[in-house]
């Protein structure tokens, strides 16, 4: 049972509270080294692969490794009950802390109860949990939508036709980001005519629906996409659609295109949630086990780069794959993996 204490957190630079009313918690101190588990859901996309690799790399760093007796990762797929069961199993097997990227933020009520009873520290990240009984390492999903929309508002002072490429229907991330965009555009007081299509955070799907939208509803004055952004730009280029301002995610491919075509009008704001947040989550879990004061909800800085700040080999890697997500460091937490270090290792330098 954690005690509710007064702030600030032991490491205030890294663990900023989510909101002004966020509680600070202090768990009973446990003796290390600890057994920590990562309960991942889906694994077969680049974001998750990068995330799992970052987690392993973080746990292998000497100062972290010294504190860990065991670090175990299990990926259970898209199925929520399987993930719930995995967490139950970790609890039964006596792990000290469990880090989870939830398939469904609302579905973990029963597990949270059990973890609490068993005195296991539960830390959620990326898709966080709707609860005050677990620690959330949060990215402001709605805030991302706001950022993108503000970028468009800024560049389209007279309003205009916007294409919004959405994510996977029925998920909270998609809805939060969409609401951020919608509310910001509405609040701007300008007239925006928005065409929505569903790109499922996937490049080829996004490319197809964008091509369709351009052919039937285009041309557009601005674009925002939640994922699959490389595909969206590709569709624009294939259709010879003029380059327009774009608020999007942090795929390397997207940023490469932004950097290359900025001169032609592809003015981008690229903001997102780097997979390295898993490291922050692990760090938070260890801090909780060590009895340090931590916020119940940690607010992560978003990795935001906007035109004209795209810097080669720092904000994007022209020689690397399109598919990985660039924002992979949280300097305030001492987490400084570059995406290149994680994903760029080849057989030779492994």
């Amino acid at each position, binding site marked *: 049972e954690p005690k509710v204490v007064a702030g600030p957190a032991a490491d205030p630079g890294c663990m900023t509270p989510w909101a002004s009313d966020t509680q600070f918690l202090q768990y009973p101190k446990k003796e290390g080294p600890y057994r920590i588990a990562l309960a991942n859901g889906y694994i077969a996309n680049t974001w998750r692969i990068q995330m799992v690799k970052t987690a392993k790399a973080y746990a292998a760093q000497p100062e972290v490794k010294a504190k860990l007796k065991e670090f175990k990762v299990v990926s259970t797929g898209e199925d929520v009950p399987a993930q719930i069961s995995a967490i139950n199993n970790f609890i039964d097997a006596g792990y000290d802390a469990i880090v989870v990227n939830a398939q469904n933020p609302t579905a973990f009520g029963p597990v949270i109860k059990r973890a609490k009873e068993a005195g296991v520290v539960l830390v959620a990240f990326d898709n966080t949990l709707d609860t005050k009984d677990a620690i959330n390492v949060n990215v402001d999903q709605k805030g991302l939508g706001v950022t993108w929309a503000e970028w468009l508002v800024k560049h389209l002072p007279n309003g205009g036709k916007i294409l919004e490429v959405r994510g996977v*229907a029925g998920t909270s991330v998609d809805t939060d980001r969409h609401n951020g965009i919608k509310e910001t555009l509405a609040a701007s007081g300008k007239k925006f005519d928005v065409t929505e299509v569903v790109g499922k955070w996937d490049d080829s799907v996004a490319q197809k629906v964008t091509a369709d939208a351009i052919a039937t509803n285009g041309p557009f004055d601005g674009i925002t996409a939640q994922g699959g952004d490389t595909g969206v730009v590709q569709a624009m280029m294939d259709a010879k659609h003029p380059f327009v301002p774009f608020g999007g995610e942090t795929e390397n491919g997207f940023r490469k295109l932004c950097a290359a075509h900025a001169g032609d009008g592809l003015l981008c704001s690229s903001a997102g949630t780097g997979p390295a947040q898993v490291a922050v989550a692990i760090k938070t879990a260890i801090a909780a086990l060590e009895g340090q004061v931590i916020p119940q909800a940690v607010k992560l800085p978003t990795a935001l780069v906007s035109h004209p700040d795209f810097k080669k080999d720092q904000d994007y890697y022209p020689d690397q794959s399109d598919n990985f997500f660039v924002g992979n460091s949280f300097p305030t937490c001492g987490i400084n993996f570059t995406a290149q270090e994680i994903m760029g290792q080849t057989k030779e330098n492994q």
Partner: protein
Amino acid sequence: MTIGTSGGWRFWYQSNKGTLLAAALFVAMFVIYVSNHPAGFTPNVVQTASNKAILLAFVAMAQCLVVITAGIDLSAGMVLVLCNCLASWLVVGTPLQTGFGIVAVLVAGLACGTLNGLIIIFGRLQPIVTTIATSAIFFGLALLLRPTPGGSVNEALADVFTSTLFGMFPTSLAVLAATILLVWIPFSRSVYGRAAYAAGSAENAAYMSGMPLKRAKLAAYAVAGLLSAMGGLYLTFYSYTGEAAFASGNAYTLYSIAAVVLGGVSLAGGKGSAVGAVFGALAFRTIGDLLFVFDFDPLWQPLFQGIVLMLAIGVGSIGLARVRNRLEWFQ
């Protein structure tokens, strides 16, 4: 006459071989799992495993019913998702309201199954593409109900259904057993059940024999919907929430086919039992559990799962090496 009681056993074994093999496969895998689990063979571990497996067990039973008639239901997973979303609205409140909610969810599942059956039987359409289409419809409805994950469930009831009886035996397994007793056994021993088998085995011959084929198939599809709804209800109990999850709906559909085959049900129809399908589902779920007890690099885990699935399937084909009349390949 040389027919003795021993002959009776032989025939029983012959017709239940698939089920027995599935049971053996499951037991073997579960033993490996439990004996490597840090917590060992405790009620908690069994409860966790059974709560996870029961959803697939229900969907697999549903799939089994339809497969017996030589059909297939690619909407089973989406019925589960739809009923999950519905339950997250309805199965709340006073005990009476909760009760009505449960009935409403089950009726909704029954209605989905009946819709499938009606279109397939009276529209005379091929089941595979019909259920692909209806699964889009069911998912659309689920999205209408739950544009974002949420909702709630009567938590007290949910806890009862996902905990253990007398601290020992998982309630979910008891519910599963009860479903087999109250739904499967009566169905399989009814005239309609028999006609369902006949439809899968030799539809024309069954028609010539004057069997009630249409009603039997309709019953199979409808009851399948009901069983998928049970799965949806359990998903709600286990997660306290509703979500229109496209990927997981499809995953359940595909897994249910795997489970049914592992359970010795012939996809050509006419053969197998829901008990076998349940064991198939339990075995399939245990493959995922094995990840937990073996220390694999996380990136290798999906590959490991795939290979174990292949091996489990392979076990069933060993008999082939013994076939001495090549015509038996084609049965």
